């Protein structure tokens, strides 16, 4: 039996955090939820996930900070990092890309189903 993939959701919005967790758990993943960037990096240090879903706008350390933190730790090749935000400026997308994000999507533009597809897609990437 395959091991459940571990997804770390770093998201400061309560509702999003809960719906991510619920849905992805429902889809069969192991899901943990960090409420801000700082907590997120701490949890990464504890255990590297298979996929991290990171929001951009967060207090303390924001999504970019997390990306940078992952780079600093040299973890960028160890797991996939996906930026899930409600900001949609190109500049943010580029910046995320430069900082090593593997994907980027705007949450409110996707249906939940699509979100799940993206997750699956990124998990199966090499």
């Amino acid at each position: 039996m395959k091991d459940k993939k571990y997804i770390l959701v770093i998201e400061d919005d309560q509702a999003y955090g809960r719906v991510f967790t619920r849905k992805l758990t429902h889809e069969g993943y192991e899901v943990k939820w960090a409420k801000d960037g700082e907590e997120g990096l701490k949890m990464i240090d504890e255990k590297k996930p298979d996929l991290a879903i990171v929001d951009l706008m967060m207090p303390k350390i924001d999504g970019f900070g997390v990306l940078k933190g992952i780079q600093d730790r040299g973890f960028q090749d160890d797991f996939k990092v996906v930026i899930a935000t409600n900001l949609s400026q190109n500049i943010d997308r580029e910046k995320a890309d430069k900082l090593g994000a593997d994907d980027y999507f705007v949450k409110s533009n996707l249906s939940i189903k699509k979100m799940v597809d993206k997750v699956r897609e990124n998990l199966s990437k090499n």
Partner: protein
Amino acid sequence: MFVFVTISVWFVFDLVRNVLSNEVPKQTRYLEMEINIKEASESIYLYDSLSSSVAIDQWEENISNYQEGRDLLLEYELTDEEHRIVNRLDEVKREIVNVGQRIIEINQQIGLDNNGLIGKFRNDIHFVEDVVVDRVDLHDMWLQIRRHEKDFLLHQDKIYVDQVEESVVRLRQSLQNEEARERLDSYLQYFLSAADLTLTRIELQREYRGLIAQIDDILDDELQNISTSEVDRQSQWATYSFLAIVLVLVLSVLIIYQAIRSIIDRIDYYRQVTTDITEGDIDKRIVVSENDELSRLAEDFNEMTDNILSEQIFTETLFESIGDGAIVIDSTMKIKLFNPAAERITGFSEDEVIGERFDEVIKLVHDETGHRNDSFIRKALLDGEVQYMDGTTSLVRNDGEKIAVDDSAAPIFDSNGNIKGVVIIFRDVTEQRKLEENKEMFFNIASHQLRTPLGSMRWNLEALLAGDEGEIPEKMQPILEDVKNSNERLVKLVNDLLDISRIEQGRQIDEKEVVDIKEVIDEVEHQMLPIAEEKNVELQMIIDDSIPQLQLYRREIRDVVENLLSNAIKYSGGEGGKVTLEAMFSGNNLKIQVSDTGIGIPKSDQDQIFSRFYRASNATTLNVQGTGIGLSVSKMFVEKMGGKMWFESEEEEGTVFHVVIPYNEVAVQDDA
């Protein structure tokens, strides 16, 4: 000078008068006299063969003409020498007349008519002829006499006279007839007289000839002299008149030269004033003293200069007063004008920058990269069109400080339509930029803040409806569906609002990417199918294979297609109906057409359809939700891609929406 002119003119006129007058020169008179004398002599000589009266008349006429000519000659002014000559001519002519008359007399005496000797002895001849005709020997002798007679008449030699005389004596001796003898004597008498006269005439003729020759000689000599003196006189006249003409010409030239000189001097003066004014002495004017056309020109010039200067002053003042920084550069990029506002903004003073190359003094850079951002100025200079700089430009002051500026560069044309320079207007928009940034930030944050609850709401609903938490009771389903729909609409609304604000700020939303239209349309179709099915609307997609790949804003074009299809389905008028989407590439354009058989758009609403928040009056009848934003945003998107969107509609029949995007606007660039 005037007197000279008058005298010279008189000289010329006199000569002309002489030349043109009918007065015959002296020369001609002499010639005429010569001719007449010669003709006179001819007639004397011809006398023998002409009838006497004709010859005499001719001779008299010639003599008379000669006399006439001589009299006319005296009307000329003759020198003493000439008078002497005329007197000589007169003497000779008297002799000629004398001799001539004697010749004529003799001719008359000899004459062939009955009064003449020759006429007279004709009777005697006839008588003797008749007598001797019968006797051959006598007849022969008589014939001999007659032969000698003829010989004499022919040759006019005395020998023949003697021969005649001898022959007559001999014949006389042979004649018996007394009367014949008398007649013969008579004949001889007449003959001898005639012969004598003839011989005399010969002498006289000789004399006559001599006299004629004399006249000839005198006239010849005289003619020569006259010719020479005439020539002298005429050449004298010619010289005088030539000199006179030359004099007149020279004087005229001098007068004209003077006049021209004075005009040129005045013009030079005017030019000097013009030069002075051009070089900076702007108050200089032409001093007008005369009162002619030139001085009127001068006055007009002065007035014009005044006008120009006052206009120039006005224009300068105008330029100085402009509230924004204004710089004028010429076609070589050198700064010509620099107003106070420009000084204030850039920190440079006018004196520092005038004459300098623009790009060496004024640095316009990109806000973030710091690279030069002034190509729009060059573009204005080259293209001849007003250029606006983009909103990311800053100006570097002389102290190094960067100020956000908004600019335009407008070409300046001269009267021939050539580009002479560029006027650049710029304004410190630091405050504005900040405001814009704030606005943008506000929008970003606002939309983010709005999207977050909406987004999670959507997922929650979707999760619920997907049955994640168990099957939803049937009664709850529609309620949840409605909630989900409302949520969707809100999400879209927030997106649209954000897009609108971004477009209006001129900010780029997304990047263009290479898009396969077919793919996009398929995606949207897939999305729309369930909704169409629900409303029992037939969806038909006709997509041409020849559509090339295009550089488009994927999200935007997708939104447009979704918007149009969604509207078509929505407004299909209750149950049933057909929606057709046609996509093709023709005439170098991407064309998308969405037609429906729905309720159509009333004419009264058609103008407003693309305005934000507008919903046609008949939309509510369908109980269809719509924010009314979609079309205005779609149109904006299409136009941003360089295309056009419009529609045709008939109430109760349906609507067709057209989207046309030119290929060259969205052509895929080959970056090799």
